[in-house]
């Protein structure tokens, strides 16, 4: 009995809370929808019927992603030819269509109840909605890309990630901004092939790439495995050239007790003085001047802070107040020119200084580039123009992409773009690459016709000549134009070398990470590899000699760790106060371990035997 009843009635949820039951669920939902379209209730209300669960979900809360659809009634789109004409003549606008119940916005739950036709001619008796344009079923980010319908699904998010990392014109007012980090492309270009979403978003004002002439060719194995070969002539002309800004901010802070920081060139008596040379570029006010070239470790803003702890009273009474150097230095491994200095005041009426450092980044071996189809690569060689292949017209490609990077990834969009942009650059036009905006075959024919008209091969291939010998290549090479992004991963910001360097205080082992001039980690698996190979001395070299080798005194009597008394010139055991100790070469980490065991109230004793 109870079962029958629950089958018939629907439980109604409003914004996730149960508010009651209705008998005829379908009619109830239809009525809400009818009223919404008529404008009786708000258009922001969405309702979904879930028959499996006998539930009706009404959603009117915030934070639902919604998408517009054209309503279809009785097998006909409500967006009639008449309305289209009116819209064209600007008699009505888009909002009119929404108000009049021609277009409605649906959320994810209500979308489960509808049947959408992609095109008007595909409408059948079950269709409830019509897609405004097939391109709209991706978001703005994806739709701003081109020819994505030719790529495999797995490449879409990858290409999206790369475009995000592209360097470009991130803001028009960049010169007045003091971003912590900023990358700016010297000559950003508008892509020859773009999409309607790209134009709608006015992305062409903030482009993040350049149109590269790309030949799908190998170059002596230099572009194997996603490596790229660049033309030095193109690089010298400014291809992919960018500038990196970093802003250093400092503030004259006030401390309790009336003390405060001071911007000035620190006197040599300050604690932590970096040496005269480091402050040489500061002007009298302790702040660096614009257009000065600066190197690693040099001071940008000289700042003197009060000591961290209260001073002890000296026997001479209150002496001269000690101060601590708290200057801002250029980061390790960086260099550049001072772009601008900004001096201002904070809300707390303290002095604030911002120094923007600029550094020009010319593409070099190790820099990363990517097309809009998830095809990334790292520059492996910058070739002099005379050694690059050239076409019959004397065109030298900017970039040589390995043909093997295409088949396994199935990014046909990349090839479509190559062809379309080539046709566009030769014909002097831009092309539309909006997703699902036409059939691939027709597009290829169209681009082919343009190329043919201008004396090129239909399918974009060209006879290339070897720049070194002048001989023609046996095969014709697919050459065209592709929009490439220079990504913000650049070797110059990542490269690090170390032979000797700082060590950690606690363990005496080398520091970690680039800012601390750290070493590369020799981890557990690396250790196991040497153990497995049996290279015992190499292992000892890594784990001891190149790491935390220490001479530790150990008591021959009690086995405790002792120390060397440099005044009396004898080793001392603190446990039995004896001097009978042995100097052993062990890792400092072991000494630390013994100390930590002692902290557990366990006394470890080391017994030694001569070998």
């Amino acid at each position, binding site marked *: 009995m109870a079962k029958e009843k629950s089958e018939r009635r629907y439980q109604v949820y409003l914004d996730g809370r149960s508010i009651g039951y209705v008998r005829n669920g379908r009619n109830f939902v239809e009525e809400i929808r009818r009223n919404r379209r008529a404008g009786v209730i708000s258009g922001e209300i969405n309702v979904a019927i879930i028959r499996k669960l006998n539930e009706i979900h009404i959603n009117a809360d915030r934070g639902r992603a919604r998408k517009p659809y054209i309503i279809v009634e009785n097998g006909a789109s409500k967006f009639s030819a008449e309305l289209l004409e009116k819209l064209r003549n600007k008699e009505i606008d888009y909002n009119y269509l929404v108000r009049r119940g021609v277009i409605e916005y649906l959320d994810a739950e209500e979308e489960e109840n509808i049947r959408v036709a992609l095109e008007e001619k595909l409408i059948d008796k079950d269709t409830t909605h019509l897609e405004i344009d097939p391109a709209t079923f991706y978001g703005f980010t994806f739709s701003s890309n081109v020819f994505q319908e030719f790529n495999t699904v797995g490449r879409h998010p990858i290409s999206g990630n790369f475009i995000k990392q592209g360097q470009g014109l991130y803001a028009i007012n960049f010169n007045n901004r003091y971003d912590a980090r900023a990358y700016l492309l010297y000559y950003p270009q508008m892509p020859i092939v773009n999409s309607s979403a790209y134009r709608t978003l006015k992305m062409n004002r903030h482009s993040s790439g350049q149109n590269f002439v790309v030949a799908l060719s190998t170059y002596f194995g230099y572009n194997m495995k996603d490596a790229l070969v660049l033309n030095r002539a193109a690089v010298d002309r400014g291809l992919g050239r960018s500038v990196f800004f970093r802003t250093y901010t400092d503030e004259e802070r006030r401390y309790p007790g009336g003390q405060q920081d001071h911007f000035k060139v620190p006197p040599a008596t300050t604690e932590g003085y970096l040496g005269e040379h480091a402050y040489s570029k500061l002007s009298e006010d302790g702040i660096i001047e614009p257009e000065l070239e600066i190197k690693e470790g040099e001071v940008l803003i000289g700042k003197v802070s009060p000591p961290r702890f209260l001073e002890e009273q000296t026997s001479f009474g209150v002496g001269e107040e000690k101060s601590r150097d708290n200057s801002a230095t250029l980061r390790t491994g960086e260099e550049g020119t001072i772009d601008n200095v900004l001096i201002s005041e904070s809300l707390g009426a303290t002095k604030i200084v911002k120094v923007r450092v600029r550094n020009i980044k010319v593409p070099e071996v190790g820099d990363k580039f990517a097309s809009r189809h998830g095809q990334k690569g790292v520059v492996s060689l910058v070739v002099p123009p005379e050694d690059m292949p050239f076409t019959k017209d004397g065109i030298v490609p900017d970039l040589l992409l390995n043909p093997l990077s295409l088949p396994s990834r199935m990014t046909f969009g990349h090839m479509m773009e190559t062809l379309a942009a080539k046709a566009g650059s030769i014909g002097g036009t831009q092309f539309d690459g909006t997703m699902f905006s036409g059939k691939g075959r027709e597009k290829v024919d169209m681009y082919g016709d343009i190329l043919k008209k201008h004396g090129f091969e239909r399918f974009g291939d060209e006879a290339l000549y070897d720049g070194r010998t002048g001989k023609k290549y046996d095969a014709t090479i697919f050459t065209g134009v592709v929009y490439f992004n220079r990504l913000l991963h650049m070797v110059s910001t990542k490269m690090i070398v170390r032979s000797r360097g700082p060590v950690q205080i606690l363990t005496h082992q080398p520091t970690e990470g680039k800012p601390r001039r750290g070493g590369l980690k020799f981890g557990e698996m690396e250790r196991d590899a040497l*153990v*497995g190979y049996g290279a015992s001395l190499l292992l000892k070299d890594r784990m001891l000699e190149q790491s935390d080798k220490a001479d530790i005194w150990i008591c021959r009597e009690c086995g405790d760790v002792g120390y060397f008394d440099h005044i009396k010139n004898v080793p001392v055991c603190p446990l039995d106060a004896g001097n009978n100790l042995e100097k052993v070469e062990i890792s400092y980490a072991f000494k630390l371990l013994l100390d930590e065991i002692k902290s*557990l109230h366990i006394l470890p004793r080391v017994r030694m035997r001569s070998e």
Partner: protein
Amino acid sequence: MSKFEDSKVVPGEAVGTVAAQSIGEPGTQMVLRSFHSAGISSVITTKGLPRIIEIVDARKKPKAPVMEIRLEKGIEKKYEKVREIWRMVEEVMTSSLISSFDEDLKAGTLVLHLEKEKMAFYEITGKTVASKLSKKEGVEVSQIDSETIKIKYMGKTTQATRTAFVNILNSPVIGIRGIIKASIQQADDSSFYITTSGSNMEEVMKIEGVDKWHLYSNDIFEVLKVYGIEAARNLIAHELSDVIAEEGFTVSFRHIALVADAMTHTGGIRSVGRHGVAGEKESVFARAAYEETVKHFTNASVFGERDTLKGVAENILIGKQIGLGTGRIKLAVKKDDLKKIKPKKGD
């Protein structure tokens, strides 16, 4: 003979580390997911990484115990005989033979309605069921006909009666305890064998016609109990090697055999890890370096343990050359002793 000499492992080779790496590397590529292949095979086994973990952790009961029963020469190709044995193997409950039952708890009666098709499939008559049930204490069976069985049982309370009825429904009629399902398979040489899910070697061995020399179970602890530690060691090695091979990886059998040896050389089965092989290392430092550092140090202090610093982990810790590979080689004669040797006259 020279091939044998060539195949011998060089002194100082880090066999354990290499074995761990050789098994661990394909392990990283395996998916941590057990596939349950639906279809013809009625026997479901754990495969892939979950099974490897099961073996290496030395779990007492495998998730899916499986047996393979070979039959003695002479009857192996006779289907009727094989079927006879098969009937003795699979455990059939009362509840799976009936279509429905009526109970009267006040009167203490239970009427079972037997299902014809199922009875025929297992070749059981109502009499067998009745006689099996009548052996239970206090149960009175009065068979009505071939399709219904009437049972009388009076418990002290209604609840006791109810419990007894449930027990009757879940009591086995034929077969061996623990064997949920058995099916007859045919090998390439047209001989028949039986595969089961659920394992009970002791009972299966008692059946006449079962080849005791080729009885197979993937329950390692059961094999240990029935056949001994050597068999268990072989089973560990072969199960591991089969699973790895099934996933499409090639690992030399010697690495796997080493793991099996490390797990069984004490005479019992130890797991690889904190509670087994690694946790029973001699060195305090080696144990502390692995897991539960503080526990090992405090225990060591209570018992006044001594670490001879011979192992790999300890030597890396203190920064000494390890006693493996190139560090294995030592001078047998001390330098000072060499001076003591006086040349013989005439040399």
